């Protein structure tokens, strides 16, 4: 529906809106809207897995803020963190990194920079799989690598092979990219990214709301 750049700007606008909001009930409302969008996009299973990682982090952040200020601020901080990260969850669930990268290239970002950004996202799960395979190979030799202080002294058994394999992967990737003309100038793109009237209206509308909130409501 929208150009990836529009989605990015809208995500930034919504994130700013959340950052400007102080009342926990308003923040809950903003977060609920995002959750509704996730349900509509049928991404709720992925979101639940993501929450398992995010909730402890938000509780910790909120707890520290509560301890150093007051309860309401602590609640707002935790909800705000949840809502902002959920904004970018929605953004990445609805936008292919390649589309984002290529559209930014159209907007003037150098292709190598955009490529590094998208390749990093593509290879994060690959590195994750490698880490799991290393943990299993070491466990099979009796070397415990479960999280915890007792396993801390064994962590070189994970980190050294992972580091070496990451370098090897980076080398192999660079070689494969060279072999497909990465360094060649005059690149074209299969997809065309054009900002239409609807995109401009959405951007103006989104940031207009932010401006209004900033002018009349933000303290």
């Amino acid at each position, binding site marked *: 529906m929208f150009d990836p750049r529009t989605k990015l700007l809208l995500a930034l606008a919504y994130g700013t809106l959340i950052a400007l909001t102080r009342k926990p009930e308003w923040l809950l409302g903003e977060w609920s809207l995002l959750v509704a969008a996730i349900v509509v996009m049928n991404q709720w299973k992925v979101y639940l897995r993501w929450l398992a990682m995010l909730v402890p982090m938000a509780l910790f952040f909120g707890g520290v803020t509560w301890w150093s200020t007051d309860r309401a601020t602590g609640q707002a901080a935790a909800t705000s963190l949840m809502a902002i990260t959920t904004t970018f969850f929605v953004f990445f669930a609805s936008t292919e990194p390649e589309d984002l990268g290529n559209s930014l290239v159209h907007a003037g970002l150098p292709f190598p920079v955009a490529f590094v950004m998208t390749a990093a996202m593509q290879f994060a799960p*690959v590195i994750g799989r490698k880490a799991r395979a290393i943990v299993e190979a070491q466990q099979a030799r009796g070397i415990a690598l479960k999280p915890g202080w007792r396993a801390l002294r064994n962590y070189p058994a994970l980190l050294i092979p992972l580091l070496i394999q990451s370098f090897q992967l980076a080398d192999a990737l660079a070689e494969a990219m060279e072999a497909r003309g990465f360094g060649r100038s005059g690149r074209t793109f299969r997809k065309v990214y054009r900002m239409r009237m609807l995109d401009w209206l959405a951007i103006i509308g989104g940031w207009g709301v932010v401006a209004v909130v900033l002018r009349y409501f933000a303290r």
Partner: protein
Amino acid sequence: MAESTLITVRELTYRYRQKSRPVLQGIHLDISGNDYLLITGRSGSGKSTLCRTFNGLIPHFYGGVLTGEVFVAGAPVDQTSVAALFNQVGMVFQNPEAQLFCRSVAQEIVFGLESLGLPRQTIEDRLRDALDQAGITALRQRDPQTLSGGEKHLVLIAAMLALRPRVIILDEPFANLDPANVLRVRRLLRELHAKGCGIVLCEHRLSRAAPDATRLVVIHEGKIAADGIPQGILANAETAWGLETPLTTRIGASLGLTPLPRSIEDMPSIPPQPALIAALEPPLPEAFTHQGQPPAVEVDHLCCQLGNQPILTDISFALHPGECLAVVGANGAGKTTLLRHLIGLQRPTKGRIRIKGRDTAGTPISNLARDVGLAFQNPDNQFFRLTVDQEIRVGPETLGTIDNSWIEELMAIFHLEAFGGHAPYRLSGGEKKRVAFASALASRPAVLALDEPTAGQDFEFRRNLRNFLGQLQARGQAIIIVTHDLTFAERTASRWLLMAEGRLLADTAPGRIMADPALMARAGLEATDRFRLAQRWQSKETRV
């Protein structure tokens, strides 16, 4: 230089950075766009290095010292960038994981076309054609990292096809593929060659690669040892250069057949010669009979489910001390998952596993690791110590089971005495595997479990591994091997577990399994050349 010559190599010598000896020496070669060229040689002979000079990755990407000349379509590679050569010489590397860097198959294929700066409509047309030619149109929107090994290779070939290169180079494309996927890739390469695309295949498994090639080059210790039509060279390949010649070729050479058959399909109708098979092939392992000892492993109605997806269904078998068992099946059949259960990396949803009579349920992995030594496919996943000796000792040191005399014995069994002080990462692929096997055995486990031990390994390694395993078996070691290398499995194990889609289809002698074509087809496997030839001759004798 002939008019159709695409790649010309003259007196090429190349040495990698920080290496004292050259990998290639005095190479002289012409490759035309009509060749289906098989470049073979033992591991480390310089095959892959030579191929990297054909598209300029050497010297531009690797540096090092290159003397002599390499021309691609008349352009000297040392003065031409890789970006200027990549659409003439397409290259598919060995490890598909690192070459698939886009989010969809379509994007993967168009990456090179976008690099060329082609108009949008041309990109779309070539994308459609490449998908169609490779037979992967249905995969167009899939994430390449989620595909099977064979599909990944087809995507990479399609990415090259879209560029319409004059020649496609493939570096050991069959190393990690099961038989069905090998046939799929081979069929595509034959079709491409028939349509006029040159093929250069680097491979040391001659039985898979030689039947389709029109020309064979043998690289031995960095030099071209032979160059010509495959039939003329294959006869001496085993004795002269330590390569695994197809059985049919060896039989043909013994009988003086011309041309030499390169596959069963090539084999002319001759009177049955079963004695010749026995003379040319290593003896098959004898059927194992246990002398009443209790089993080392008992798997009883094992089921495993991930979410709603059944991964293993009702698997039961036993393995005794001194027995070698091969678990065979296509990629994704559940073989590795079965191994992971033995050491507790995965736990049964239903059923029981007993190691040395003790139920593994609730037993921590660290305890199971004392009884099951597991060597995974990629030895790089485990190396973190400075020397081979330290690396082998790390398991028993952690488990508190160190036995110095046993470690010394293991070093001798796996021929690692000379490498004790070497850094594991500096070893060759085969040497690393041997370190991983010794490491798996270092705690004197009752069971040795090997996951695809021969993947990507050459003839010499596979022959030596067979000997190592034979020695261990004679000492009463229970061994379980997961593999889709049926030739190795036939020569090593007297009993196979045949798996497909997480189910155990058969648990019996290899000959009985391979004699059932329906069973083999269901498992996506193809009988070994030895078995097929013996069966063909047997049926002929019966008819006579």
